[in-house]
């Protein structure tokens, strides 16, 4: 079966005002199969977030090809890309990125609204998802009435509500203490193990990366290690 993600020779350079283009990714080849749990590590500025944005169809690569779920992403129009972000991918950000003026429940229901699900049904499913994530009692609260760990769990519920094949998390525990980080990682581990959802996450902490099965290490825009987490040189 074709891998869920296949990157071939992906390059990325940013155009900056005045100065020359800044090259960030120098040809990334990467294939990730369904059900994998991948951690991406690397020094600050090595291009991890850049790669995640390309994987998430939030940004387009400068060169190379990206196949997601058997489809060439570069051939997709705005509308189809929005659809992919809506249905195939779930995002979890370091800064949670919840909409602050909406209740927890409405935040979680938002991807469903963009999927065309009716309001009542979307709310029902959002509440269900929150309950599964252990946040049922917070459905009516505003995000800023929750702790950081709770907010990140809400964000995960939002990422999962549309049953994506792939969850992308860019430093999901970056703003959290160790105990809360472990709780969040347990959530990822469980949804990977129980629901078979492919998880790709970026982290700086080896303890966090240990929850994954496979490690991809970047350095200066190139993959310098790709293999099991165990045995990876620290």
């Amino acid at each position, binding site marked *: 079966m074709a891998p869920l993600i296949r990157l071939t020779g992906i390059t990325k350079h940013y155009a900056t005002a005045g100065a020359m283009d800044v090259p960030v990714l120098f040809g990334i080849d990467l294939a990730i199969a369904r059900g994998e749990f991948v951690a991406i590590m690397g020094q600050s500025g090595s291009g991890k977030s850049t790669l995640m*944005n390309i994987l*998430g*169809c*939030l*940004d387009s690569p400068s060169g190379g090809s990206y196949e997601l779920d058997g489809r060439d992403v570069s051939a997709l129009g*705005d*509308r189809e890309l*929005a*659809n992919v*972000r*809506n*249905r195939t991918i779930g*995002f979890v*950000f370091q800064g949670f*990125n919840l*909409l602050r*003026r*909406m209740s927890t429940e409405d935040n979680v229901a*938002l*991807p469903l*609204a*963009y*999927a*065309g699900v*009716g*309001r009542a049904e979307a709310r029902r499913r959002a509440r269900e998802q929150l309950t599964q994530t252990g946040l049922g009692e917070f459905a009516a609260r505003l995000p800023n009435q929750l702790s950081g760990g709770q907010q990140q769990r809400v964000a995960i519920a*939002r990422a999962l509500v*549309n049953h994506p094949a792939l969850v992308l998390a860019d430093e999901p525990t970056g703003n959290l203490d160790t105990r809360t980080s472990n709780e969040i990682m347990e959530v990822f581990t469980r949804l990977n193990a129980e629901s078979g959802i492919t998880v790709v996450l970026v982290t700086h902490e080896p303890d966090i990366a240990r929850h994954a099965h496979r490690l991809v290490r970047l350095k200066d825009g190139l993959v310098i290690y790709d293999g099991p987490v165990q045995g990876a040189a620290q």
Partner: protein
Amino acid sequence: MSYVQVLLEALRAMAMNRLRTALTMLGMIIGVGAVVLMMAVGQGAQTKVNQSIATMGSNLFIVLSGAVTSGGVRFGTGSAQTLTVDDATALAGLSTVKGTAPLISGGFQLAFGNANWGTLVWGTTPDYFTLRAWDTDEGELFGDTDLRSASRVAVIGQTVAENLFPDENPVGKTLRIRNSPFTIIGVLARKGQNLDGRDQDDTVFVPISTARQQLIRTPFPGSVRMIMAQAISEQALAEAEAEMTQLLRVRHRIREGQDDDFNLRNLSAVAETAAIAARAMSLMLGAIASVSLLVGGIGIMNIMLVSVTERTREIGIRMALGARRRDILLQFLTEALVICLVGGSVGLAIGVGGAWIAAELANMTVEVTLASAGVAFGFSAAIGVFFGFYPARKAAGLKPVEALRYE
């Protein structure tokens, strides 16, 4: 995302920033209110003029005794009475003229019982009422028999009736005009103001023969103050004017090159001028008010642009969650539209209220038409779309990564 949901989100966003929303709306409220009010005032003025024109009678001319030069001194119009009853009869014989009526007049004190009223009394023929399409509300008009026998009968206007006979029917009563008793045989229908703003109902008509005998002394027998004439149709107006001028010049033995000793006025032309002036005023008021609507629209654009910038990150998040460009566009457009429509409705209410106050307190003729309400509403919607579109498109055109990175 369904339209209902887009609308709910727009309302939520507006509720987040109540003061700003209210101030933005205020621009719309003032704009639409001003347009509605000004259009009501303009329309009212137009209606008033049109009503005056309608009560005037159609295709009418007035012939006045003209300026006369006497020993090098030019006297004003009517300074010499050169017109006669025979002129009127002759003019009526023209093929383009439907009818004529000679008129003489004088100001008199009227009395009934203890009540007094000063007004202008006119002597004329029964044809006058036909020309003006003027009938009685009560009683009847005087006829040719009254004219021939110079009977002491009078037909009075509504204003005179109200002032002299506040709570009784004037028909059959005896009115004293400068101490001469006249029997009131009819009360005329109400006509309202004429184009000059004079009350057409403050008047008394008596047969011209009676007037000459009892009330009004004329320079010579048969002379009249003016003649009213009616052309057979609108198309015949120009021809009637030419023929009447020609006939009067011949009758008055005016030589080639000499000035007319009469003054022929086409009342339709006067009416048209008045109507054009009223329309121009109406348009100008509307144009001035539209400027404030435009300013309101620019205010909306300004606020929407600020709002898009402030919510850049939100837009990025929404895009990451699957919002299409269309969804983002619709979201901001809806916000602009809601502000405009709510502001427009309130403005409409205020405009209508203002028009009512102007009518009640300032005694102005105002008229709020359904069309002006529709125009105001349509305008505010159009402004919402027009001035909301640019900011909304700007929001929708953002790249997801860039929007998400925005601090």
